[in-house]
């Protein structure tokens, strides 16, 4: 199973399968549009390597690796 952290090159895309966990962080991720079937693209990383920037549902979202690891995806 792949997670968002498996996107390494800018422009790589994936389809979201699930967000693991039922806690506030997961709920927050889902509220921001990271739900099953959504298309997500890596835009790049911050200069210090973390967090990363993604494009989802037409806007840009920044996530740390710790949060990105909760998001399972299917590579496109």
């Amino acid at each position, binding site marked *: 199973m792949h997670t968002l952290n498996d996107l390494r090159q800018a422009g790589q895309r994936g389809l979201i399968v699930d967000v693991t966990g*039922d806690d506030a962080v997961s709920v927050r991720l889902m509220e921001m549009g990271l739900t099953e079937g959504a298309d997500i693209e890596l835009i790049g990383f911050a200069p210090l390597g973390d*967090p990363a920037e993604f494009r989802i549902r037409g806007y840009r979202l*920044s996530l740390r690796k710790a949060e990105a690891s909760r998001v399972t995806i299917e590579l496109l």
Partner: protein
Amino acid sequence: MPAAVPAVSTRSLTVAVIGNPNTGKSTIFTALTGMHSLIGNYPGVTVEKKIGNFRHQQQDVRLVDLPGTYSLSPRSLDEMVSVEVLLGRQAEVGRIDAVICIADASNLERNLYLVSQVLDLGLPTVLILNMWDVAQSRGITIDVEKLSQTLGIPVIPCEAHRHRQIDAVKDAVLSVAGKAGVESPRVFPAVFYEEGKQLGSQLQEWGEPDVPFYVTERLLLDVGGQIESSFAARFSTRLTEALAAARERLKASGFRVPAAEAKARYAWSRQVLTGIMVVPQQQQVTSSDHLDRWLTHKVFGLAAFVLIMFVVFQSISTLAAPVMQLCEAGQQIVGDWVSSLMSPGPFRSLLVDGVIGGVGGILVFLPQICFLFFFIALLEDCGYMARAAFLMDKLMTKVGLSGKSFVPLMSSFACAIPGIMATRTIENRRDRMVTILVAPLMSCSARFPVYTLMIAAFFPDMAWAGGWITLRGVLIFVMTFFGAFVAIPVAWLLKKTMFRGETPPFVMELPSYKWPSVHIVLLRVYESARAFVIRAGTLIFATSILIWAASYFPGDHTELNRLQEQVDETKVSLNTEISEKAELEKQKSKLSEKGSAPELAAIEQKLAAVESKLEPLEALITTKNAMSEHLLETSYLGRFGKTIEPAVKPLGWDWRIGVGVLASFPAREVIVSTLGTIYSLGGDVDEADSGLQNALRESKWPDNRPVYSIPVAISIMVFFALCAQCVSTLMVIRRETNSWGWPLFTFTYMTVLAYIGAFLAYRLFAFLL
């Protein structure tokens, strides 16, 4: 759900404004209401209450601005405020007649998530599609008419920053306000609504009638949410058990809480927009995207960040400094003017030293607050602030904070007050609290006078590397970063103890860059300045008066007043000599640079002649200063200083330093003038005054040992680096946290830290040197 009441035009309508962050909500709010809005806090929380008014078609409308949010599922008391206001359960706001929901037209799919929750509230609603121009520039088309039909509410495309369509918004609000509320779009499967109904009747059975549909919905959806907690107090485990059972049943029928909510709402959003919104297949690369590639680049991004921060803070200090000097000069002029009008006495002292000094002490912070907020508002409004947090996040996680804390902490190097006010951009409460609590440890500009005085008086003027590195410069540098260095373990400790909890997620939207709105930027500056002056200012002022009274009473000032009158009179009669002396000194300093010996000697001769004429005045001033020293020594403040001398002795201090520290409670830099008073120089000295430096060096203990030594100087500097001797900061903490507990805590922990730090520094350097 409140019953729908027909609109009565004699009554003012109350309309709530809600929307995602970065949708230009505040721009619309000000476009609707103008500059005048009432700002306060909701009781018990840190949420700002902002209310504005407008009149349209003979109808008064009261607009309540709610904090920007991505969803209406309250997880904390702060988030609960918006829900309470919308449900009409917030006593200070009252019933809501309509909701204006603001969405970003260029990002509608995600924005409709909040819209669907707002529609579930069943209130009359108007949807504004702001940033219409941005959407168009991206080639996005939206069929507004059809969207309005599908949602069953008025939808208005808007470009608030150009003040377009503002009247259409007002028309729409009046057309729906007070009418029947909207139908819920019912985004969940029927089984969910069945459970909701059951829960409602269950609650009615338990003596809780008329629970709004939205509340039962949230009770089912938010596991351990704020609404559940607020109910749990009344129903103990009964409710928790009922909810768990209901969720279990929902799960069995394929509706897994909490994941199902987001899934259902986003599915609804997609479905609504099908055939209504067309996004070009090929993502257009906008100029914002190009800019972002550079500004978040590994090398150029960091370089740009450093450059932007440098320019911002450099301009704050260069722009604010002259205005601050102007404030101080103004204070001096007004003080002198009042002094010249009145004869010496307690009333004049109260006015000049208490009132004018107190007001000056507040106003002197204003330039920095204004300039810092100007830049923060500018960076925020154009979209860079989110990038700054993005760039700095990794660094800040090392101390357990997030990137959003960087700018407030950096700002605190100029002054903790605007820094603490800037923490409003941190949405996580724990992070915000820790940032507020360590911000006063950053070395602010008020510490410089203390450092400068101590370093100039006790450290030799040594230089290395051809004058590029000086001992004094290195010391100033070390002292500047000492506080920040101590802040690292303090922040870490606070995160490990009082604000324990999982690391908050860094789920942050990176909005598109746009040109900042001058209006919004200036409004932010005005609002922060007003908030500071009115709410922190009054308390700062009161404290200044209190400290003045403690240092003035109970001594008999008649003798001092007589001396002061004599000084004033002598000054008037010797006016020509005084100005002659000043003129000669100016010439002398000019000449000593160029170095023409005979001319210099002539000037010095003249100067000596003038000085001998001024001798009676000097003698009078010396007597007067000795008198005021005695009065301070016997004042309540002085007596208290003597009482606490045993407590400050371990730090190497005598009672005079103790009194100086006590009297500088309103503001650190006050210690310089207090020491001036104590060492019989009068209060009008500054840190560069050689008389004060000499007085410190010559100060003795009763057994003739010098009071000051390098370890004592270091001990004082360390104390001032770590202490919370700044009423303004404490009052701003009170304002921002809406509690007296946090300023008290800040003062206590910093004073303890400062005491221990000063003690260790004194012992260490006494041992080493």
